[in-house]
């Protein structure tokens, strides 16, 4: 059994706890947790070993296995995974940011990419609420794709501007030298 760190509501890292102890810590579905072997922090309800923490609200495990504290039979875990799926990442905040920010950089053409991202991002929630999980996941993927494309082009554009400014300063500097050359 792994021991977990988690990030509390204040954003502080706490740990380590066994899955049973996490139950006492009132870890929520979207609490970020980490344990050895994980590449990055993940939502608690995405971690297989911690799924049982969130089954209680449905009442299913309480009634079916009242005294059982250990691992649940596989079919129970299967049931939990099917009945609750977190909404796929919507990308709404990111796609809105990549739509507005290019305006300041005078690269409004990038906003078109951001708008494509927003349209997909807004679909995620609608599909999810309708219960169409596959379509929601698909929209989430598209939204993420367009948002990332816009973001990387924006970063490239930003670098170009910085290079242009540096070249311009060097150019002006060289002109000053030229003037000196003529006058002497």
């Amino acid at each position, binding site marked *: 059994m792994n021991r977990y760190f988690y990030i509390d509501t204040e954003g502080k890292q706490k740990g380590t706890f066994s899955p049973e102890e996490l139950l006492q810590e009132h870890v929520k579905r979207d609490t970020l947790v980490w344990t050895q072997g994980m590449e990055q922090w993940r939502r608690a309800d995405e971690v297989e070993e911690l799924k049982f923490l969130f089954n209680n609200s449905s009442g299913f495990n309480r009634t079916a296995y009242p005294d059982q504290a250990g691992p649940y039979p596989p079919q129970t875990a299967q049931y939990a995974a099917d009945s609750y799926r977190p909404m796929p990442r919507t990308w709404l905040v990111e796609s809105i940011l990549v739509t507005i920010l290019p305006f300041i950089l005078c690269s409004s053409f990038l906003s078109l990419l951001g708008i494509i991202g927003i349209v997909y991002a807004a679909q995620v929630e609608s599909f999810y609420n309708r219960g169409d999980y596959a379509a929601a996941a698909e929209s989430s993927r598209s939204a993420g794709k367009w948002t990332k494309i816009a973001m990387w082009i924006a970063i490239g554009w930003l670098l170009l501007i910085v290079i242009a400014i540096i070249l*311009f300063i060097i150019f002006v500097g060289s002109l000053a030298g030229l003037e000196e050359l003529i006058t002497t």
Partner: protein
Amino acid sequence: MKTISGVVVGLLLVAALFLFYRFDPETQPLFPKCPFLLVTGYQCPGCGSQRALHSLLHADIVGALKQNAFMVVAIPYIFLGIYLQYLGGRRRNPELERIFYGRWSAIILLVVIFAYWVLRNLL
């Protein structure tokens, strides 16, 4: 890795704000010009936002509103988005995200951008 990129972005932001404070985009040739305006002669929704930022940093709100009213409203909105997404605001203030970065706010935002785009060229 996350803190390093956070620090880098923060430093870039401060540097950019300093440039916009120190130099006036109106007179300095350093700042990028809008390709849409150059090609069509019409202003895009973002035209004037650099000048507006310069005016805002000099506490000239009226001037900023004249240069790009949309950006004056959008800048606090952008900071709210950055707070929600990258500074843990999503967990602390989920209701702010629902109101300002929900599905309907995204649609309203698109309508506002297009309306501003058309109106600023007509008026």
